[in-house]
């Protein structure tokens, strides 16, 4: 079997079928929506910071998408709690691939990094480093 079924290991399917932190936060510090125009998927990431305005307290996500983008959002939302904004902004696609624990085919990498990209863009907008209402994996 090729790369595809490897992509759908139990962990991915589990997060897809029972996503963690799915929904919207009641009082997020910031919230951001981004899309992957290649497949039309849209994801919203809500982030609540601690009082230090640096440390991430909660993350929730919402939106529909493929198994890869949804599982990635679900796993990322758990992983980010306790991290700082700087640590979020330092993450790159290798971190996401490591987190997913499977090989991601080149055509699907944008699905995998959608949640990370949306969270990072939301953080940049929150810090005033980016001025955009909606961002995309094509940016």
């Amino acid at each position, binding site marked *: *079997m*090729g*790369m*595809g*079924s490897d*992509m*759908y290991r139990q962990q991915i*399917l589990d997060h*897809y*079928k029972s996503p963690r932190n799915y929904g919207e936060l009641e009082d997020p510090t910031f919230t951001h929506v981004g899309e992957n125009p*290649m*497949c*039309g*998927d*849209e994801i919203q990431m809500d982030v609540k910071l601690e009082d230090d305005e640096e440390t991430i307290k909660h993350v929730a996500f919402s939106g*529909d*998408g*493929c*198994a*890869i983008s949804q599982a990635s959002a679900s796993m990322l939302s758990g992983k980010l709690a306790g991290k700082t904004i700087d640590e979020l902004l330092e993450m790159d696609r290798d971190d996401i691939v490591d987190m997913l624990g499977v090989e991601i*085919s080149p055509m*699907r990498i944008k*699905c995998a990094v959608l949640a990370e990209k949306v969270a990072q863009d939301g953080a940049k907008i929150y810090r005033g480093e980016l001025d955009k209402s909606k961002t995309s994996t094509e940016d």
Partner: protein
Amino acid sequence: MSQRNVGTLDIERIRSDFPILEREFDDQQVVYLDNAATTQTPDPVIDAMSDYYRYTNSNVHRGIHHLSQEASEAYERAHDRVAEFIGASGGREEVIFTKNTTESENLVAYSWGLNELGPGDEVVLTEMEHHASLVTWQQIAHETGAEVKYIQIDEDGRLDMDHARECITDDTAILSAVHVSNTLGTVNPVAKLTEIAHKHGALSFIDGAQAVPNRPVDVEEIDADFYAFSGHKMAGPTGIGVLYGKKQLLEEMEPYLYGGGMIRKVTFEDSTWADLPWKFEPGTPPIAEAVGLEAAIDYLEEIGMERVQAHEEELAEYAYEQLKAEGDVEIYGPEPGPDRSGLVGFNLESVHAHDLASIMNDHTVAVRAGDHCTQPLHDKLGVAASARASFYVYNTREEIDKLIDAIDDARQLFA
């Protein structure tokens, strides 16, 4: 036109012309069902292009040497061959070679649209337009102050012809419609649409990218003012598209791109334009691709366009029935019949189209997943993406069975 019973194709012989179909990934032979995106290229087309580069290559309309003369003749003759193939009685003067269907749309939108459209004018499109025409006319309308209207589709994925009659009015300047939808497979009544447009003094542009490859097309029977298609979707090469236009209209239009080869006389102050079709073909054109396109037409006509159509319709019908029997597959577009082409768009309940395509790729089944350059239509269908299987002369029922196996596998994985 044709009766259904036009004889089956010698698939084995046809497949032997396409070495790519022998390719294997992970010890599984490729099942290529992405023909609406691009078709595979048979040996005679590849050979024609190789021979051109090996023995004839030269620039056209420049040198007076032997090679340039041969290259020029081959390039010009390809125009005649295309004209004959689509029933353009005006010959080469009505056939412009572009890069692809999209460029053909842009040529008319810029050359004719920018000059002729203004506030109060209407451009009528269909809800099933490809972005090639939708985005192009939308943006030209923004630029000129014209208004864009969309003919709605009904729940079966056919055009609502009553709504078409409402949309097309005396204010309509041009109608641009797909002949065959790349997402729904619907074959539109483009001759009827053109007749309605003409009654109101409007022009008709037909996007035939998904029609010319798989059915006999006669532009004069449709009475289209413009008709566009691409080489790479009809067993030909990438990098070449066709714009057919009625001679009188093309003569009146200004060039779209300027440069060498499209001029008659140039001074430091001004220039005049070459005759049709060269006026619209500046710079060094796609010469080898024109040779390849002619070879592709020869190849298809040797099979016979009516037989190509019958084969595709048969496969589409088989795929439709197999998918329907699955029970949890939503299929888009009309039921099999004369107004349905050889492509099937669908979604498997509970599995995203991209995941489905990845799992199909595990079975080495190549399909398209995404919005197929029809985002507004997908919005209307209420889905972000769909999967699409599309067939050509070399595909078989067994390959559709493999598609179904892959769907069963995906269902199981996501259960």
